[in-house]
């Protein structure tokens, strides 16, 4: 039997041991550079050379079964998902302060958990496999650890004190993994440093490294979102996620600017990614408003259906239930021009204060950017467009305007720009941007600490404008009190205070006291 046939024969048994995980049948790696066991798009790939090499010491079938046990246990036990992988890596990085060492330590820890789980739960040839693997300094220590915690002699020796301490870690207790990881890293640090100083560099995990390859795009998205929620600040997120920058770039998470000319694109902007993923976790409600032009596409006429055209828009009533070219009719759609009571979500201008009194988003979580990001998500979700006016000392040139768009990346780039200067809003610039709205009157979302030098002219300007205004003030200041008092009687304004992250979901966009009608204004 060749290797693929052995895999096919062994696979049902492996699946059964692991309680039938939804994974496709593994395959043999096509090129020699493939790791011993690798997960590619949920499919385990075994390296033929690796299997054949070990087959000199044990039956090939056992090599395959043990390798598959190892690969499946990563999927079913540890790391399980990308968020867990990131958390473990963050814990390792915290102790080791070095990317390469943290990655190696994370790989080693994940392997100990997955393999120990297999040895405890069912019959596996993993101990025999480890007995015959080639070993660097860390792999030698790990084999000695396995001998101790599995009770099977793997013929490996390491300092007794180290193994005694390593064997006291609760590898199988998922709730303790981060704490265990820190302890594990402190103990193996001297070995990692020794490996790093070797000429050939750090060894890789004997059965393959772990990275993004084992997770689907959706899982990576979800993992980043979860990790952004758990990270204490953007810096913590940055320090961990930047270690995966190359792999993330491979999945399309680059921040390269499209444009003409030559030159290397910018690296992944983890701060932007942090706020984007964090904002995706919140769902702010947007109240609908009467619109002259709806954002939705409405049915307006029939056209004959032709072969190759999609059938979703077929009008069954005028097609006599038949799908026949010439007879079948499809609906044509266009942007609805509606006047009167039709409701929809208008476009939105986000005015965000990035002056020195606001938090620098690179070091600490900026509620302003998170809030603005949530607003952006809410409007884009409804098919509306978003414009950004980012200001510090705008009359002195510290401002940035982004025209109405649905390009999330450009919106976040504009939101994450931090000027850190004084605070004044250039009303003419803002007014010009507001007038560029293509559909009806845009909503305005203002997020600031209200320490704006021209707050009174701004308030006067806003009192003259149509459209709904949602103002959010970060912290309670005298200026915020003034603004609340000044706008108390207006019908198109809602004011929210944000002092903690938890306040953000309480914002309701476009929550006005009553809908605006042409000619009707709040005082």
């Amino acid at each position, binding site marked *: 039997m060749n290797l693929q046939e052995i895999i096919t024969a062994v696979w049902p048994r492996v699946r*059964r041991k692991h309680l*039938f995980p939804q994974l496709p049948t593994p395959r043999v790696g096509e090129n020699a550079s493939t790791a011993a066991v690798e997960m590619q798009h949920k499919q385990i790939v075994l390296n033929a050379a690796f299997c054949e090499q070990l087959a000199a010491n044990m039956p090939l079938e056992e090599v395959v079964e043990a390798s598959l046990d190892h690969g499946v246990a990563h999927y079913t036990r540890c790391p399980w998902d990308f968020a867990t992988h990131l958390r473990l890596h963050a814990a390792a990085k915290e102790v080791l302060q070095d990317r390469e060492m943290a990655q190696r330590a994370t790989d080693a820890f994940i392997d100990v958990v997955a393999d*120990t789980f297999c040895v405890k739960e069912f*019959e596996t040839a993993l101990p025999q496999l480890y007995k015959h693997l080639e070993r660097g300094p860390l792999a030698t220590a790990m084999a000695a650890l396995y001998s*101790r915690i599995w009770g099977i002699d793997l013929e490996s020796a390491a300092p007794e004190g180290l193994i*005694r301490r390593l*064997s*006291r870690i609760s590898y199988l207790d998922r709730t303790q993994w981060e*704490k265990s990881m820190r302890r594990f890293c402190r103990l193996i640090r001297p070995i990692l440093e020794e490996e790093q100083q070797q000429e050939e560099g750090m060894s890789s995990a004997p059965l393959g490294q772990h990275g993004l390859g084992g997770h689907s795009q959706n899982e990576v998205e979800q993992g980043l979102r979860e990790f952004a929620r758990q990270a204490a600040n953007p810096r913590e997120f940055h320090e961990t996620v930047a270690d995966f920058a190359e792999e993330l770039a491979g999945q399309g998470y680059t921040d390269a600017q499209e444009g003409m000319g030559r030159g290397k694109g910018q690296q992944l902007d983890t701060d932007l990614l942090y706020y984007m993923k964090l904002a995706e976790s919140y769902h702010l409600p947007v109240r609908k408003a009467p619109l002259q032009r709806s954002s939705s596409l409405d049915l307006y006429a029939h056209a004959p259906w032709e072969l190759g055209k999609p059938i979703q828009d077929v009008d069954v009533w005028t097609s006599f239930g038949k799908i026949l070219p010439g007879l079948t009719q499809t609906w044509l759609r266009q942007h609805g021009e509606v006047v009167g009571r039709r409701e929809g979500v208008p476009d939105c201008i986000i005015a965000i204060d990035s002056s020195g009194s606001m938090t620098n988003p690179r070091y600490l979580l900026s509620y302003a950017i998170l809030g603005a990001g949530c607003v952006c998500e809410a409007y884009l979700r409804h098919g509306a467009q978003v414009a950004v006016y980012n200001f510090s000392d705008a009359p002195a040139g510290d401002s940035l305007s982004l025209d109405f768009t649905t390009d999330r990346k450009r919106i976040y780039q504009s939101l994450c720009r931090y000027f850190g200067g004084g605070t004044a809003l250039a009303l003419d610039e803002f007014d010009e941007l507001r007038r560029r709205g293509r559909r009806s009157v845009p909503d305005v979302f203002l997020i600031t600490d209200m320490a704006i030098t021209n707050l009174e002219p701004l308030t006067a300007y806003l009192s003259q404008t149509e459209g709904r205004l949602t103002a959010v003030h970060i912290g309670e200041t005298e200026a915020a009190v003034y603004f609340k008092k000044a706008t108390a009687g207006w019908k198109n304004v809602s004011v929210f205070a944000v002092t903690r992250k938890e306040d953000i979901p309480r914002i309701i966009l476009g929550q006005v006291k009553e809908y605006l009608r042409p000619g009707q204004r709040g005082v």
Partner: protein
Amino acid sequence: MVNPFREFHAIQGGRREIPLDRIIASKDLILDRLIVGYHKLIEEEVHNLVWLVDHGALPRAYAAAEKAIAEVNFTVEDVEDFCFTLEKADSFALALAGPSGLYLSAMCNRVEGTEISLRLKGLKSRVHLLGYRLPEGKRLIVEGSCGDFAGAAMEGGEIIVQGNTGNWTGVGLKRGKITVEGNAGERTGEWMEGGEVQVKGRIGSLGQVQGGKVYLGDLQVAPVRETT
């Protein structure tokens, strides 16, 4: 009709005990008993420990700590794990700097093994009285900083502090060596009778050194050597 879950019926609970289970269970049991002993010490002695100026309080509290751990058979690794418990402790009692130091000292003095590494880096408060009465032949390596009275009344052991120490470092030292890689606070070497204190950083002030030697780097600062 085929039951899609039919195959699951054949799955037997294949779990078996591996040595890791026994190691973890034994570790948890000992740690629990050490924590119970510590709480007992707190209950009995906390009022006295607040008033350390009372001369009898310290030996009495130490005797209580020794009594609390007398029944527990622990190893050097258990002592180190107890430190990790302190690091993650949310309870007020576990974070008490004086009693926790005295309890750790009692554990270090009793445990079998010559070298003990304690990681105090992540602790919220500094541990006082660490290395109290450390006997000859024991070596205590502290990763992080200690509080006041480090190496108090030491009886021949060696302490290496890879951080700073508070005030009264080496107070009443009889024999042995204290090495502080960072700075030491006020009244360093107070009432020292013998032994050696070496501070590689700065010393806040020296106490009344009655015997032994205090070094600042390689320079002997107490007793001051007369130059010819």
